[in-house]
């Protein structure tokens, strides 16, 4: 059909020919993500690491559930998570968070099966980054924090962005109230903007050196962070789930938060 799509005829009469349609490309109106709100935070100490998250799950202005945990044990022997030595918190899109947690859990279990020893937190942290990055163009829409004890028995904490960039840190807040909690942690854990009184004037003023905090202090900081976030953010509340990982194992603590 040499005449296809042209205006070939000298006569003025037009005819319709089969032609490639330039119908506008339809866009998908289905949006595969939602934000289930909530916040998480993690802090490490000399011989422990703490991960915490509120237990509210929201969809818009609706509260879906008052108890939907965001902190999980990874690589445990059974459903209860007994025998695990790594913990993960996920906040953002809950279904992705669940899927990510289960994938990492399977990876850690297979590692133990294939190598006959538990996966180190460092290896697990690298693997989690790879898992996230593999879905670079359809990301797991979550902010993950991974915690455990490193090879020397020190608390280890790794934080991630949704596409797998990660970094080991002393403390990190994630989720909807991260911007409320993180500055508080900077000040209380890393002693930002705290100076040694009388150490000098102006630029000579010496800043207070951060050092690992004892567990009681850290737990109190976590509670304070969340009670404050509850006051100022509507998506945070209902309950606080705390997981403390020490050489003795993982301890899980639940305390109520305001339900308003």
């Amino acid at each position, binding site marked *: 059909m040499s005449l296809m799509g042209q205006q070939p005829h000298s006569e003025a009469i037009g005819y319709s020919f089969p032609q490639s349609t330039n119908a506008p490309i339809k866009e998908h109106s289905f949006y595969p993500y939602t934000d289930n709100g909530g916040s998480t935070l993690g802090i490490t100490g000399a011989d422990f690491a703490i991960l915490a998250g509120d237990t509210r799950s929201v969809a818009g202005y609706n509260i879906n559930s008052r108890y939907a945990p965001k902190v999980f044990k990874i690589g445990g*022997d*059974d459903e209860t998570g007994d025998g695990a030595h790594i913990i993960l918190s996920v906040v953002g899109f809950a279904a992705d968070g669940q899927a990510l947690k*289960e994938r990492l859990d399977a990876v850690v279990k297979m590692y133990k*099966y294939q190598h006959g020893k538990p996966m180190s937190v460092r290896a697990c942290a690298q693997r989690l980054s790879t898992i996230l990055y593999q879905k670079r163009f359809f990301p797991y829409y979550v902010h993950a924090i991974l915690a455990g004890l490193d090879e020397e028995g020190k608390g280890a904490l790794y934080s991630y962005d949704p596409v797998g960039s990660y970094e080991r840190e002393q403390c990190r807040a994630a989720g909807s109230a991260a911007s409320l909690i993180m500055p508080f942690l900077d000040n209380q854990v890393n002693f930002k903007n705290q100076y040694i009184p009388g150490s000098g004037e102006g630029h000579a003023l010496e800043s207070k050196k951060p050092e690992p905090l004892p567990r009681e202090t850290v737990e109190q900081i976590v509670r304070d962070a969340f009670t404050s976030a509850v006051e100022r953010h509507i998506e945070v509340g209902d309950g606080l789930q705390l997981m403390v990982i020490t050489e003795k194992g993982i301890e899980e603590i639940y305390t109520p938060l305001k339900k308003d």
Partner: protein
Amino acid sequence: MFRNNYDNDAVTFSPQGRIFQVEYAQEAVKQGSVVVGLVNKTHSVLVGLKRNAEELSSYQKKIIEVDSHMGIAIAGLASDARVLSNYMKQQSLGSRMTYGRPIPVDRIVNQIADRAQTNTQHYGKRPYGVGLLVAGVDEAGPHLFEFQPSGMIHEMLACAIGARSQMARTYLERNLEKISNSTRDELIDHGLRALKETLSQDKELTVDNTSVGVVGLAGEDAKGKIESFKLYEGQQLVPLLEALESGETKEDETMEVDS
């Protein structure tokens, strides 16, 4: 010279209705070192005799944990067993992922049986050269299954496969009643005794050459519903072997009294 014309592949029947390649695969099982499995009302136990290829080498693993509710004991080609155990591990992980439940034992045993069977019906394939004893617990209680290279599976009360396993089977048959009504520890003891029957004169059960796997329903006071699969190897075997020995000396004494 006589030559068997019907054993070049696993898909051709002999005029007598046999498939020689499959039978040869069964022979591979008989050459593997012995493993024993037995169940009572609450537990399922696997016991195996490990062999080392030479004095300086390590011992070949005989019992593998598949999932927290299930384990297998192998006799035959260990490398074929690895393929099967990897498959089983994946299937049980898959079941936990998609349904959040441990896979029922009969289900996974049927799956490996189907896989093994396809190997006996497709040209260019070879049957697995390994027999398995699968011990596990599910909603219906403790189970023991025997799996053969032919793809045959049987649920068993007690079973032994591998070299000289006939001696163990005789022991199990004679003590079936006692085994069925035994406690957890007695069940392990019976397993070790059955295993001991198969040993040649100069051999003994040691912490190096013995392997025990236990899985069962949890006791009343335990927090979970099941007692997870536990593998006893090396020094962990000491109390079990000691119990076996003390039980035997006691029997010897009573026999003396009787006579």
